[in-house]
């Protein structure tokens, strides 16, 4: 590599890594903050919505039909026969959350049900009354359980056919043919590409305006421009070093998400395979990420070189963040299906998200991923050329 490019890279690294505060705020803090927020705050909020597993809801039942009794007794609930108690006097108990539920069957429920004929419009179907309290979470859950028991009881009475019923022949049959890996791949491919691109962009936003608009604002870039150094070497040196710093900043945030994922997802992740990707998958992802960071940094560098101050640069790069989010959203709702036509892979940013979605969901084509990486490098080189031209323009560099 050209000597001046390495000199600039070394200086940028010395500037960044020599500043403990800067390393902390751009590399350590984002990841740490995300980890803390996701695992403790979000995890904590979820825990409050998850009930105590050992809790047995208290359910009052009036005129329990004989056929249903064993089903109710099998539930993890404290069932009390309240046939002799007046409904009006039970209601306040539910209201005050002393008990969870009241299930009142009509008198002669069994015979009324047997006599009911759907074609006879003069007959009313026997009506079961269920009283609950929506502000009491346990009450809501007990109601759902009771309703499902009653529905399945109703289904058994008028059963005509079954779907995937457990019989001796089907006992060991797996009907959902997706593997756990596929399922996990689908979840991750819907989530990770979007997150990665946003974190990488934040990493770029944290370093490029400061290094380029900042040097311009403080007049230190003029000191570099008075040396015989080639402007394109300055542009390359800046882009390479800033890309590396942005990459570790972005990956720090990403690591924060990955590490907090088990706590964040809670029981949904239990029993799922965690190591579903191969080394070559990871290498492809790394290639896509590296080339994407080069594109992002070179674009933000151009904006920063145009801006007069760091503040202006930070404001100007925000709309780009919105565009990137809009481009990224379809991949999160697309359910892990990447575009197959190669033409999509010529659009920067979108190509990166699509290529990553493909790799994460095991459905990538190597040509599309390679196109993405190559196209990104071409864009980054073109933007570096523009940046070098800007460094050479007195109107841009010395505008007051």
């Amino acid at each position, binding site marked *: 590599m050209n000597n001046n490019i390495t000199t600039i890279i070394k200086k940028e690294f010395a500037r960044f890594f020599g500043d403990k505060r800067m390393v902390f705020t751009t590399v350590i803090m984002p990841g740490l903050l995300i980890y803390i927020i996701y695992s403790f705050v979000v995890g904590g909020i979820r825990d409050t919505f998850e009930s105590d597993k050992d809790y047995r809801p208290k359910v009052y039942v009036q005129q329990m039909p004989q056929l249903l009794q064993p089903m109710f007794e099998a539930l993890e609930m404290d069932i009390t026969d309240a046939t002799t108690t007046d409904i009006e006097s039970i209601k306040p108990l539910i209201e005050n959350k002393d008990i969870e539920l009241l299930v009142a069957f009509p008198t002669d429920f069994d015979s009324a049900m047997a006599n009911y004929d759907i074609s006879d419009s003069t007959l009313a179907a026997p009506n079961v009354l269920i009283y609950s309290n929506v502000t009491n979470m346990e009450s809501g859950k007990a109601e759902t359980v009771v309703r499902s028991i009653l529905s399945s009881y109703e289904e058994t009475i008028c059963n005509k056919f079954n779907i995937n019923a457990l019989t001796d022949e089907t006992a060991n049959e797996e009907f959902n043919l997706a593997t756990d890996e596929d399922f996990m791949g689908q979840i991750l491919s819907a989530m990770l590409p979007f997150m990665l691109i946003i974190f990488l962009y934040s990493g770029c936003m944290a370093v490029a305006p400061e290094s380029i608009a900042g040097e311009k604002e*403080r*007049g230190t870039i003029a*000191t570099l421009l008075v040396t015989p*150094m080639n402007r394109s070497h300055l542009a390359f040196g800046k882009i390479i070093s800033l890309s590396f710093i942005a990459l570790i900043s972005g990956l720090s945030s990403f690591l924060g998400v990955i590490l907090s994922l088990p706590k964040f997802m809670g029981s949904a992740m239990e029993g799922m395979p965690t190591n579903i990707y191969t080394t070559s998958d990871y290498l492809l992802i790394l290639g896509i990420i590296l080339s994407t960071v080069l594109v992002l940094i070179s674009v933000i560098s151009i904006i920063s070189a145009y801006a007069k101050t760091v503040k202006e640069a930070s404001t100007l790069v925000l709309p780009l963040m919105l565009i990137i989010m809009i481009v990224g959203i379809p991949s999160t709702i697309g359910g892990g299906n990447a575009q197959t036509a190669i033409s999509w892979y010529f659009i920067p940013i979108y190509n990166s998200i699509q290529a990553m979605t493909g790799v994460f969901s095991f459905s990538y084509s190597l040509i599309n991923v390679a196109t993405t990486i190559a196209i990104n490098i071409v864009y980054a080189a073109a933007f570096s050329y523009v940046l070098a031209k800007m460094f050479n323009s*007195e109107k841009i560099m010395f505008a007051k």
Partner: protein
Amino acid sequence: METILVAEGLKKTFSLSRKQQKLEKTNSKTKVAVDNLSFSAYKGEIFGLLGPNGAGKTTTLRMIASLIRPDQGDVVVDGFSVVKDPQKVRERIGFLTSELKLEDFFTPNYLFDFFSELYGIDPTTRNERKQKLFSRFGIEKFAEVKVANLSTGMKQKVSLAISLVHDPDIIIFDEPTNGLDVLTAKTVTDYLLELRNMGKSIILSTHIFSLVEKVCDRVGVVIDGRMAACDTLEQIRNGKSLEDRFFDIYSEMKGGNDE
């Protein structure tokens, strides 16, 4: 005498923002900062550009240093045109101006090495030069102190040392003693004479008469972007003090039209 620098018909126009138009009390959208300015400087002399603030001195020096391009005209520095060969010009000159700042985060020692690398100086030469310049300006004492923590005078000394990392033959100083205390200012003026004795050619801009009288061999008086007079110090003074002569030239130029 051997000519080392020739400025020929330099012109530079800046566009004015609305705010600047108000400040300058003008409706014109452009301002001619340098207007057909020509002069030559000889090898081994100190050439001074003397003029009031806003006369176009700094703009002229920035064009010589190839930081900005002239709209018209050209400067040939040691045989290379700033318009066609700016990189070659940059290799040959040292430029010291208050607009070129050093990064606060780094130490003088680090910055000296950094700029030496950009000029492609080998480490042995660099270390020798650093030792010499740092001891000449007393930078050793604060060589490892971040620029942010240095006083204005210390910073100016470091900037001066760094502008000389590549031992240029032509050195351009824009208001070299501005804002400095008397002791640092004396260090700088003494060093200008030392550089001349070493055979270096120096172009400096200033509005301080005493500095010109003390160090310059030849002087160009710049008023409103134009060269009002250009000759040896003796010829310009014409038996008077430089200050008196300057005001004579100034009123001749202005022709008593507005001031």
